[in-house]
């Protein structure tokens, strides 16, 4: 079987039950597995809340390692919209030409380096530097700052030994605190400064609020982008005909990105907390217990997607939820789409073969399910 084929571990449970129970540090989760149910629950913010104890809607829960509320992600309407409105324009900057050209140049440099013929490791030597460099554009800060983030390694607050690592988490949180102080002392054109001067209900955002936005920006866009980039390259390595196809038809990249996001679903699921005794798909959900919106399962729902377990790069009808759904849909999606689209185009223009010389899968343990989210390492050669 091809290494770029990722099994759908939820299939049987989704078809037969529609939900699944999962334990997580003593705070159980009802995973919602079907696309329509996932969408409905995501839409119904009043019944399924995000504004719970900070860290609780993340699975595995981060309540023991984080006190700062991530914004706007852990806030419910109507306050949610006020935060989101402050940020929408900034997070749409990736559509502008100077941003796109700078991003393209970063990718070109990484591809040129990889093309020198040596064996390299895709996760550490390509995906992580690409994610970090691209993030300097989203934050509008000097490229050199990427070196700091690259030095943190692939998991900002997840380590291989323990799933949730408080010490690693504090590296990021302390770093953001310092950067907020720097921006207060010498405001610039960066995201920190932009947030610090933003006003909500006639007052400035607090340092804690700015920290909440920045944690989300760093954490939400790290493993997800690294996995999406790595998985896409492994897919292309095993489908050289699609490299040719993308070279001949660069306009195909837009649909290809959506399909790769659907198939690989970089974020498996996201939680909500029930505000009342209720039910999902005929399964009881008690008040103040958690559900998770399982994007990864929904994206393989055979009642919606034709041949869901195949990557069909030019898939025309693709109502996936890889970037979430509803008012909490991924704020960084515009950035992520540009990263992947330009990656596909630059690789197709410059690379004829990607040879995989070894790899190690990255498997997520979801209690009763095991799901491959990407790779720990992939050793490869570009030609």
């Amino acid at each position, binding site marked *: 079987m091809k290494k770029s084929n990722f099994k759908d571990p939820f299939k049987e449970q989704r078809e037969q039950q529609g939900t699944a129970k999962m334990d997580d540090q003593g705070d159980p989760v009802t995973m919602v597995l079907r696309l*329509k149910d996932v969408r409905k629950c995501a839409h119904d913010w009043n019944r399924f809340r995000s504004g719970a104890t900070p860290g609780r809607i993340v699975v595995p829960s981060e309540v023991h390692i984080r006190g700062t509320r991530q914004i706007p992600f852990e806030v419910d309407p109507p306050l949610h919209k006020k935060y989101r409105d402050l940020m929408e324009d900034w997070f749409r900057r990736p559509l502008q030409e100077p941003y796109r050209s700078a991003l393209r140049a970063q990718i070109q440099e990484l591809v040129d380096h990889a093309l020198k013929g040596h064996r390299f490791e895709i996760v550490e030597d390509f995906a992580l530097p690409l994610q970090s460099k691209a993030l300097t554009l989203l934050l509008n800060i000097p490229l050199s700052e990427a070196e700091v983030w690259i030095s943190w390694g692939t998991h900002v607050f997840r380590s291989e030994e323990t799933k949730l690592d408080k010490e690693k988490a504090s590296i990021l949180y302390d770093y953001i605190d310092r950067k907020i102080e720097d921006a207060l002392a010498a405001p610039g054109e960066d995201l920190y400064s932009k947030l610090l001067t933003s006003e909500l209900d006639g007052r400035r955002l607090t340092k804690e609020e700015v920290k909440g936005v920045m944690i989300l920006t760093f954490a939400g866009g790290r493993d997800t982008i690294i996995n999406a980039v790595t998985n896409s390259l492994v897919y292309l390595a095993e489908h050289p005909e699609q490299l040719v196809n993308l070279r001949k038809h660069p306009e195909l990249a837009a649909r290809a990105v959506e399909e790769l996001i659907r198939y690989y679903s970089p974020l498996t699921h996201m939680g909500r907390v029930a505000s009342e005794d209720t039910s999902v798909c005929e399964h009881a959900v008690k008040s103040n217990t958690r559900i998770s919106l399982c994007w990864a399962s929904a994206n393989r729902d055979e009642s*919606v997607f034709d041949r869901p377990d195949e990557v069909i790069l030019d898939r025309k009808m*693709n109502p996936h939820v890889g970037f979430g759904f509803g008012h909490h849909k991924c704020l960084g999606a515009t950035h992520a789409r540009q990263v992947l689209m330009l990656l596909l185009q630059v690789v197709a223009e410059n690379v004829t073969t990607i040879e995989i010389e070894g790899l190690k899968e990255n498997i997520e343990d979801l209690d009763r399910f095991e799901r491959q989210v990407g790779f720990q390492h992939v050793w490869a050669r570009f030609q």
Partner: protein
Amino acid sequence: MINITFITQAGESKTVQASSGTIMELARQHGIEGIDGDCGGVCSCATCHVHVDPAFAEVVGEPSDIEKDMLELDDHADAYSRLGCQIEIEPSFDGLILTVAN
């Protein structure tokens, strides 16, 4: 070439010429406010929601089931809602008026 008019939520009206492609692509080419088309037209993001002028409802046609499922959860949806990415422009659309939903 045919004429298609977009009316934005701010009440601005813009008439543009079209020949082929989708309504979402047309709106993006002309920078129509409220039509983002984030997913590029694969019916995933619902950021190209328009209300079709009732006089043209039959000409433009009904949404597919997948499109209906997307619209069902949009707070601004009504009987004339469509996603622009799912409407292929045809000559019979000449004079069509679309109100941008968001």
